[in-house]
């Protein structure tokens, strides 16, 4: 079994204590709520889009350390990216945290080569795959982002 420090890496604990982009954007072009009824995590994600480019990203809400740090690092990561790049990042992140923990991690560098996706700091969440009950915590912000850019629904996104 993995060590707790694999899950609660310093970067994650720092972002939990002092989350980045933890604010509302009044004139956001997309605003989306996300909810994990299992543990009560709730967040509101704000995106400012300039055409296809995410100019600004921020969030508010309450949740566990994993979900808060994930939202913090995600908002950092998607700023300046196009919607398509943010979606590719979602796919790579999702593949990482849901991969089989008995196998080596997906080859991020190869994936980065082919899809121009660099998870960078987001790879601190790799340890989540060892904790199946926490995958939804790490993915809540990402599912919310995906819904926000799709703008298909105003209904809150639920992990359930």
């Amino acid at each position, binding site marked *: *079994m993995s060590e707790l420090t694999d899950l609660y890496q310093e970067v994650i604990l720092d972002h*939990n204590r002092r989350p980045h982009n933890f604010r509302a954007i009044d004139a956001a072009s997309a605003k989306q709520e996300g909810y994990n009824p299992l*543990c*009560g*995590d709730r967040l509101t994600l704000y995106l400012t889009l300039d055409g296809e480019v995410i100019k600004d990203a921020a969030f508010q809400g309450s*949740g566990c350390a994993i979900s*808060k740090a994930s939202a913090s690092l995600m908002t950092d990561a998607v700023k300046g990216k196009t919607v398509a790049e943010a979606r590719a990042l979602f796919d790579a992140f999702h593949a990482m945290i849901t991969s089989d923990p008995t196998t080596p991690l997906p080859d991020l560098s190869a994936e980065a080569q082919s899809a121009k996706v660099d998870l960078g700091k987001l790879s601190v969440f790799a340890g989540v795959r060892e904790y199946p009950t926490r995958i939804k915590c790490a993915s809540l912000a990402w599912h919310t982002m995906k819904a926000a850019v799709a703008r298909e629904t105003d209904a809150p996104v639920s992990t359930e």
Partner: protein
Amino acid sequence: MTPSALGDRRSALGFDVATIRADFPILSELIHGKPLVYLDSANTSQKPLSVIKATDNYYRHANANIHRATHLLSERATALYEGSRKKAATFLNAGDPHTIVLTKGTTDGINLVAQSYGRPLLKPGDEIVLSWLEHHSNIVPWQLVAGQTGATIKVVSINDAGELDLEEYARLLSSRTKIVAVGHVSNALGTINPIKSMIAQAHAVGAVVLVDGAQAAPHLVIDVQDLDCDFYVLSSHKMFGPTGTGVLYGRRTLLEAMPPYQGGGDMISSVTFEKTLYNQVPYKFEAGTPNIAGVAGFGAAIDYLMSIDREAALAHEDAVLDYATARVREIPGARIIGEARHKTGVLSFLIEGAHPHDAGTILDQQGIAVRTGQHCAQPVMDKFCIPATIRASLAIYNTREDIDALVKGLHKVREVFS
């Protein structure tokens, strides 16, 4: 004498927790390489060997359908199934076993009463009284039937200690009140509600009362005749029995007047396309082949509970709860949620700076099983303006050593989030 010391004395007299623990095989399990500390019995309890064996025995020596065939195995299966019904009647002091409907569990029992008693009765303007302490399973079935009938739901609020506001309860009751549905013990906070007097008050305005006893059954001695309740529901799996079965006790006159809940085999006495005659109570509420193995195990669980000195067991549990409350309160940044004067089995709390879900993962790594989250009681969380709690819940097999392990684990939580 402190409650803890009293608990010790009674333990010495009538209750030996080491003997009890030896009856539960899973308590010797290692979790992440550490001895299991199981503090999640309000979620589901562990099962003694006698229950596991009873389930196994049914499949090995009695597996057949009930009430149907003439062969010996069917006789054995029927005897086990009906035996458990009689045991449940004894356990609840119901008297007549025909007042015992075997269900899938508490949720099933509440839905049955909502649909078979509530739905034909309720009209626009009628009221259903619930409380803020209720589990979602004692809220949503009533919302469904209120939507179907035009009845209105009224909710009794709670004070800061997590106790029902009984003055408000008295004010809410009126000739419009048709049904009161209230938990005997709160799953999220452990509050024991004064249901006997609440039932009498409801009867005075002509309402019937359903008591959700899911959390009471593993702890308290229940006497449905003394309580004078109309319906009492519980789940086998919270009281050391298998999952997927439970009991609805109903006053016989009410059950007889109610239409069936679901149609199918076993709930009929004759079927033609012109007219179907329903079986008598309780069988008309038991359509289809039930969870026979589960019911056989449930009978063994009732035997188990009835074989111990329940008063001494409760004194032991109360002593462990008092100890847990005192130890957790000492932890810097700890906030206990729910400090009712009368409570049993549950300690809900928060640790400042650590979200309950993170605490749950860190405790699990140390072999300690607690529940974290809303405990299917979102209104309780909303009342205290909190997203979730850490809930340590107790059963007869828990000890002070379990609490010491919990406290050590919580210090580890604080260390990670310092």
